[in-house]
C-alpha cells in the first residue's frame, strides 16, 4: 500500500492509520447495543435501513474516490461505515429506501468528499444528511412506528409522533403537561427504548452502555457528552421549576429525542469538534443551549441535530480562540 502524502491539517491530528481504525471500530462496537434494541423494537426494517445506509455510504465513497477524485481508496478506514450507521440511527425505520440512499449521497458526496474527505469536513456528515432529509421530506422523516404498550413489538404502518413531538404539539394547543402525561411513554419505556423515534435514539440505556465503553476505551473524553447533557438538564430544569405545566421535566428531555445519541456519538466526532478542553466545554454548552432553545421555542420538536451542526460551524472559531498551548515562543505578531 502506498503511503498517503503528509497531511497538514488543523484537526484532528490522526496519529496513524492503525489507531484511527481502532478508534472507528471501537465506535462501531459501542453502537451495537442500541442497534440490537432497535432490531428488537422495529424488526427487520431497522436492519434494512441500516444495511442500505452503510452499503451506499461505502459505495459512494468508493465511486467518488475512484472516478471523480482519482485518489487512494480509503473506504475501509471505518469512517464511511460509521457515517452510514449514524445516518441510519437518525432515520425512522419506515423511511423509503431511496431516501436513505439520497441521504447517504448527501453525507458522503456533499458534506464529506466535497471538502476533501475525512479530516477536512466542517460538518458532521450523518447529521447534515439527516437535516437535509428532514427538511426535504418532513412527512416521511417524522413518521415513526408507534409502540404498542403491552406487546413490545410494533405494528407495521401504525405511526405516530415522538415524545417530543407530542409535547410540542400538545403545549402549542393549550394542553398542560398533566394532560399530556398519559400520552407520553413512561420513563422506564424511554430508558429501555419502547417508544417511537429514530432507529438509534430510542433506548437511552443501550446508548449509555455504549457511551460508557467509549469513555472506558478513551475514544472520547467526558467533557463534551457530560457537559452537553448537564446543560440540557440545568436549562430545562429551570424552565420546569418555573412552570411545570408548560415545560417538560429534565428527565423527559434527557431521555427523549436524540440527546444521548448526539452527546456521545455525534458531538464527540473528532473531526468536527474542538481540540482543546476549554474549546470542548464551550462547544458542549453551546450545543446544550441551542438544543433547549429549539426544543422549547422553535418550530421543530427536536433540536439536537441542528444544535450540533450549528456548533460544528463554530469549531474553527473556537479553535482559534482556545489554541492548544504550544511549546516554545509565544510571540504573536499583531497586525492591527
Amino acid at each position, binding site marked *: 500500500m502506498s503511503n498517503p502524502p503528509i497531511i497538514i491539517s488543523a484537526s484532528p491530528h490522526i496519529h496513524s492509520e492503525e489507531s484511527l481504525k481502532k478508534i472507528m471500530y471501537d465506535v462501531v462496537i459501542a453502537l451495537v447495543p442500541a442497534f440490537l434494541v432497535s432490531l428488537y423494537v422495529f424488526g427487520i426494517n431497522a436492519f434494512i435501513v441500516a444495511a442500505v445506509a452503510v452499503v451506499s455510504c461505502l459505495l459512494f465513497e468508493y465511486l467518488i474516490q475512484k472516478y471523480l477524485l482519482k485518489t487512494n481508496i480509503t473506504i475501509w478506514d471505518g469512517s464511511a461505515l460509521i457515517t452510514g450507521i449514524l445516518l441510519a440511527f437518525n432515520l425512522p425505520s419506515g423511511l*423509503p429506501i431511496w*431516501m436513505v440512499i439520497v441521504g447517504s449521497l448527501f453525507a458522503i458526496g*456533499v458534506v464529506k468528499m466535497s471538502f476533501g474527505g475525512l479530516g477536512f469536513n466542517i460538518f458532521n456528515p450523518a447529521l447534515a444528511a439527516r437535516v*437535509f432529509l428532514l*427538511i*426535504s*421530506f*418532513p412527512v*416521511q422523516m417524522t413518521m415513526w412506528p408507534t409502540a404498542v404498550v403491552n406487546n413490545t413489538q410494533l405494528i407495521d404502518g401504525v405511526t405516530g409522533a415522538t415524545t417530543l413531538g407530542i409535547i410540542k404539539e400538545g403545549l402549542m394547543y393549550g394542553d398542560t403537561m398533566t394532560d399530556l402525561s398519559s400520552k407520553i411513554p413512561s420513563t422506564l419505556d424511554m430508558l429501555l427504548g419502547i417508544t417511537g423515534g429514530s432507529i438509534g435514539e430510542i433506548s437511552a440505556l443501550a446508548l449509555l452502555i455504549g457511551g460508557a465503553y467509549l469513555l472506558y476505551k478513551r475514544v472520547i473524553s467526558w467533557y463534551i457528552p457530560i457537559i452537553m447533557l448537564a446543560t440540557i438538564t440545568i436549562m430545562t430544569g429551570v424552565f420546569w421549576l418555573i412552570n411545570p405545566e408548560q415545560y417538560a421535566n429534565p428527565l423527559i428531555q434527557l431521555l427523549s429525542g436524540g440527546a444521548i445519541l448526539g452527546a456521545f456519538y455525534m458531538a464527540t466526532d473528532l473531526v468536527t469538534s474542538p481540540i482543546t478542553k476549554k474549546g470542548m466545554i464551550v462547544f458542549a454548552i453551546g450545543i446544550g443551549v441551542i438544543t433547549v432553545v429549539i426544543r422549547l421555542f422553535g418550530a421543530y420538536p427536536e433540536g439536537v441535530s441542528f444544535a450540533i451542526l450549528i456548533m460544528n460551524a463554530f469549531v474553527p472559531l473556537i479553535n482559534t480562540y482556545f489554541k492548544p498551548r504550544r511549546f516554545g515562543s509565544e510571540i504573536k505578531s499583531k497586525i492591527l
Partner: protein
Amino acid sequence: MVSKINQKENFIKGIVKENPTFVLLLGMCPTLGVTTSAFNGFGMGVATLFVLVMSNIVVSLVKNQIPSKVRIPAFIIIIATFVTVVEMVLEAFVPFLYEQLGIFIPLIVVNCIILGRAEAFASKNDVFSSIIDAFGMGLGFVIALTILGATRELLGNGSVFDFKLTSENANTFIIFILPPGAFIALAYLTVIFNKLTSKITG
C-alpha cells in the same frame, strides 16, 4: 474613437468566458434570492438585462460629458433611474412578478454587474460595442438565472416553468426551494459550468 472590437467575441464573452454568475460571481444576491422557480429567475434576468442595456447606452453616450471624479455617482443615478422605471412598469403590468421579486427589484441598482459594466466597458467604448457588451453580459445573466431557477424548481417542486413533470404527490426535495438549496445548487452548477467550459475552451 474607432472600434476595433470583434463584436462576436464581445457578445459571446458575457455568456461563456466572463459569465457574470458562474465565472465573475457578480450579482449574487438576486441570483440566489429569486431563483425559486425558472420563471422568477428568467424575469429577474430580463429586468436586469434591460437596466444593463439602457444604462450602458446612456453611459457610453454621456461618458465624455462627465468629469471622472463624479463619474461613479453619475453612473449610479443613471442606473437607479432605469431601475425605478423597471420597478414601476413591473408593478403596473406584471404585478405577479413584481410581488415575487419583491425587494430584489430595487436592489438591481446595487447589482455589481451593472455598475461594473458601466465602469469597465461603457465608459470607455462606443455605443454600439456597449450595447453588444450589455446584451452579452445580460444574456449570460438571464441564462444563468434561468438554469438555476429551473434546477431548483425541478428538484424542489418537480416542475419547470410551472410545467409539472412529476406526479402531484411525488416527493420532491423541498430544500431546493429554501435558502440552503440555493447555495448548494449554485455550488454544483458552477462546478459543472466550469467543467464544460474548460472542455470547450481547452
